[in-house]
């Protein structure tokens, strides 16, 4: 299981602050931070703790089995962001 961030993310960085696993990226100061339209959760390192869900002021974060239908793309999107980042595409 993992959490995912949907497209209504406003890049308030409170989720990054509360994440104990450092799995939400890009973070302020990263070269791809300004160009990112939203923040993403790395499903490989997310520890399912729920802290970001509580912190998000616009309810943009969901458990992967509870993602509303209109945001179902977000599962792949979050994973793809990290896949592309790993191969240095970003």
């Amino acid at each position, binding site marked *: 299981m993992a959490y995912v961030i949907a*497209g209504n993310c406003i*890049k308030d*960085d409170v989720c990054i602050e509360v994440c104990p696993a450092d799995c939400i990226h890009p973070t302020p100061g990263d070269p791809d931070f300004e160009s*990112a339209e939203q923040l993403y959760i790395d499903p490989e390192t997310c520890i399912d703790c729920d802290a970001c869900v509580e912190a998000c002021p616009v309810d943009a974060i969901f458990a992967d089995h509870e993602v509303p239908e209109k945001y179902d793309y977000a599962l792949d*999107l979050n994973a793809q962001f990290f896949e592309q980042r790993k191969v240095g595409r970003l």
Partner: protein
Amino acid sequence: MSDRRVAIVGAGPAGAFAAARLLRVGGGPEVDLYERLPTPWGLLRGGVAPDHHEIKRLDETFDRDVLGPRCRFLGNVEVGTDISHGDLMRHYDAVVYAVGAQTDKSLGIPGEDLPGSLPATDFVGWYNGHPDRRELDPPLSGRRAVIIGNGNVAADVARMLTLDSAELDRTDTAEHALEALAASGIEEVVVLGRRGPAQAAFTSAELREMGHMDGVDLHVDPAAVELDPVSEEWLAQEGTFTAGKNVELLREFAAAEPKGAPRRIELRFLTSPVAIHGDGKVESIEVQRNRIERDDSGTLRARPADEPTETIECDLVLRSVGYRAVPLPDVPFDERNYVLPNERGRVVDADSRDPVPGVYAVGWIKRGPTGILGTNKRDANETVGLLLEDLDSLPAPQAPGVEAIDALLAEKAPDLVTVEGWRAIDALERERGEAAERPRVKLADRDALLGTARTGA
């Protein structure tokens, strides 16, 4: 330093994040949050599209973090008109400008001022219940509207023009706009982008949303998503994750069979307007094809292609090609970049670049109209960090103290809306919203807002 007092001018997201940051400092200064409207939160209330109601929920965070015991909301007061920059400097240790960018950029083409050709931002204010846009009366009886621009305001406006009435009825869209949009004859919205699909400024989230609307077919010409070699190379080497996603989505939409929906959005790329035509009102728009070139500095630019122009019949043209800030009386202004000249938020003289002690900037008036809501939080942290560093060494104001400020406000701002007034407006809007199964039913004219505010005072 608890007797210090800071004025923030503008209660939009940048001002709200700045106030929240100042209030988090134990024993920090008191804050007066000035706003020219009777309601706080700026573009969160008056800009964010009504169908994005999750984002509008940020107002709960602002309410909690800003409107506390150490911060006064002073609404319906316009700095520069009702009270001056000099007034603020006389009474406050520091002044933070968070006034945003209040006008739109023009296209600079003939016919731009014909009735029916409007800044998209006016239309946004109209459907969001901005009291100054209530009388806009946009022409919606024609069959086709054209939107110029490829950013998220363009996407918002395209959705608002085509959303199903039943869906709109569940949002906090202003009553006058709900009625007008329900009676709208618009069946087709053409969105023009100057550059190509790889350079579109939409977020992939907004693009995806446009492609998945009930009752709307999104049309993208398959030929338009065949990238030119320059864009292909740019996307592979410099393109962002979003740009890649956008091209992927546009190809998907181009390949999709139309659903036969009652309304249609068409995205056209590499197309610029050259003139708006009509006899006394907008009747058509003339457009020119562009091609993408790399200039000497390596930047991609759209240049007119050697092709004849094309005319698109329409009754409404909404331009959304950027915002622009306006100067404030007695405050330095950078005429080239349309911001307050500043170093990381400390306002400086436009020529000498010497700091102007006690004056700060945050948000769009500091960095220009870029970024999304959360960008303002980091921006505010930077400005407020410097302000707190400076606070003890700033010259003391001539007439400090809340009594002197209240005397000034009593004289210059008799219709002041305080936090109690805003709470009364907020409560009434939410109560009406609950009855109508909507997040809120907005009060959209100034008299109603002020009348309701008085019931809370």
